[in-house]
C-alpha cells in the first residue's frame, strides 16, 4: 500500500472536518481508515486514461434530452419573491439576538 495512514493524518483530517476525536477514537479511526483506504486503493488498477469524470449522471442524461426532446436545463428568471419571515429564519438557531445569529466572538478575517 502506497499510503501511510497514521495518527497525524487522522488528526489533520479531523481538524479539516471540524470533528473532534478523542485519543481512543484516533486509533479506532486509524484502523478503519487503513482497511477502507486499502480497499479503495484497488481502484488504482483501473486504467482511466482518456476517460472523462462522471460527477453527476444528469449531465449525460440531460445532453441526451436536450437533443431528443429539446428541453432546456433549468435557470431562474431574475424575479423577486418573498423571503421567509425573519422569525422563521432564526427560529432553529441555537442562539440569536435582534434577529441575527449569535455566535462566540470570531476574529475578523474575511
Amino acid at each position, binding site marked *: 500500500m502506497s499510503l501511510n495512514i497514521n495518527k497525524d*493524518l*487522522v488528526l489533520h*483530517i*479531523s*481538524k*479539516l*472536518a*471540524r*470533528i*473532534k*476525536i478523542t485519543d481512543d477514537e484516533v486509533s479506532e*479511526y486509524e484502523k*478503519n*481508515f487503513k*482497511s*477502507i*483506504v486499502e*480497499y*479503495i486503493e*484497488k*481502484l*488504482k488498477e*483501473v486504467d*482511466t486514461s482518456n*476517460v*472523462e*469524470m*462522471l*460527477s*453527476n*449522471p*444528469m449531465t*449525460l*442524461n*440531460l445532453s*441526451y*434530452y436536450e437533443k431528443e*426532446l429539446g*428541453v*432546456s*436545463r*433549468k*435557470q*431562474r428568471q431574475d424575479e423577486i419573491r418573498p423571503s*421567509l419571515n425573519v422569525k*422563521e*429564519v432564526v*427560529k*432553529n*438557531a*441555537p*442562539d440569536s439576538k435582534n434577529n441575527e*445569529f449569535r*455566535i*462566540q*466572538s*470570531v476574529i475578523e478575517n474575511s
Partner: protein
Amino acid sequence: MSEFKNIYDAHLALKNKKISAKELCVEHIKVAKENKNNTFITLTEDFALEKAKKIDEKGINNHLDGIPFSLKDLFITKNIRTTAGSKMLYNYIPPYEGTTSDNLQDAGAVLIGKVGCDEFGMGSSNENTPFGPVNLPINNDYLPGGSSGASAVSVLEGSSLFSMGTDTGGSVRLPANFCGLVGYKPTYGRVSRYGQIAYASSLDQASPFAKTPLDIAMIMDSITKNDEKDSTQAPIGAMNSASKILNNTDKDLKMTIGIDRSMIEGCREDVRDSLNQSIKELEKKGVKFKDISLPHLKYSVAVYYVIATSEASSNLARFDGVHFGYSSKNGKDLEDSYALSRSIGFHEEVKRRVLLGTFCLSSGYSDEYYSHACKVRKLIYDDFQKAFKECDYVYSPVCATTAFRKDEILTPLQMYMNDLYTIPVNLAGLPSMAIPYGKSSLNSLPTGFQLIGNSFKDEELILDGHKVFEVLK
C-alpha cells in the same frame, strides 16, 4: 393490521364508500401507536386526522386520496419536526415544505408520521441512529436493513400503505428486499430532491416502498412533476403509469433481460437458489435471458465510498451549530465549538464517512481518489450502456444474503460490502425495481431480485415490473 393489502384495494374501498378516509387513517394510526417495532420518530396524528376529514368532505378522485403513508425522516415537512435520524437535528422544525411531501399531500395522501432511518441515510441496517434500531416485524431477531429500514417496516407492520425512503446506494431496495416489499429507485433526476436532506447529492433519489408495482406507479405519478427548485431534475413532467397498467391487456413478457451470472455466483446459497428459481420461472413465461458482462461493477463499492463520502463531507458542513442544529456551548472558541457540536451532534458512522470524504478531497489526495473514482464511475455507466444495446433490463441480486441478524457484528468495510449489488445502479443513475420473490430455505426470510432499466425508462420498467411481479406471484 388493516384489511387492505395495498393502495389500489384501499382506493377502491374508499371510492365505493366501504370505508372512510378517517376510518382508514385511524386504523393505521392505531398500529403506529402500538409501537411494536420502534418505527416512528414523530407521529402526526392530529394533522393526519384533519387531512382525512378534508378528504372525506372533498370525495375520492386521485389514487392517493385518503391513503395513509409515512416519510423517512430525511424528508422536510414544514412545521413538522425533521431529524434526519440524528441528534444534530433533534429539535429541527423546518420553515419550508419539501417537494415530495408537498406533492404527495397534494395528491391526497395522508401523512401518518415521520419514520426512523440510519442517520442522514448512512448505513444499511437502520441501527446507526440515536433513535434506536427498528425490528423486522416478521422475525424480531432480525433487522429490516437500511438506511430506510423503518419506512419498509411501516408498510410491513401496517401503519402505512406506502412509505417514501431515499436510495443513495441501495437504502430502499435493500430493506424492500429484506422485508418482501417492492422498492423502486427512480432514474437519477426523475424526482425532485428539493426538501430531501442530502447525503450524497449525485446519488440520492427519493424512492417509494409499496406492496405492488401498481402501487409504485400510483406514487411515482404523483411525485414526478417538474420542480423548478431542483436544477438536476429532468424537466420532462409527471409520469402517467398507473392508468397504463390498469388499461393494459397485453400480458406477454416480450422482454430481453441481461444477466451477468457471476453476480449470482457471489450470493449465499439460499439466495442463489431462490434467484435461479426466479430466472427459471421467468424463462418459462417467455422472458429471454441473455448473458452480458459488466466488468467494472466489481469496483462499485470502492467508487461509491469515495464519491458518496466526499459529497457527504461537503453536504454536512452546514451542520455547524450556528444557524440550526445541535450546538455545544462548551468550546473555548468558535472553532472549538464547531468541532464539539459536530462531534457530539453526529453519530459514529456519520463521523467516519465525513472524515473519509474529507480525506478523499483533501489537497494531495483529491486527484488520486475523488477524480479517479469519478472516472471509474464513467466506466461503470458505460458498462450498463453497452448492456442496454443488447437487452431491455438487467437482472441483478439485491443482496448476497437475507436480512441481518441483530447480533451480527460487522466491520465497517464488511457492512459496506452488503451494498455491492445496489450501488452500481446509483453510480450510473439508473432506475431499478426490487421485486420480492420466494423465501430463504435457510431462515424463511424474504428473498428477491432487482430489474434495472436504462435512464428515464421508468415508465417501461414499472409496466414490465408489474407484469413480472404478477407472473411470479
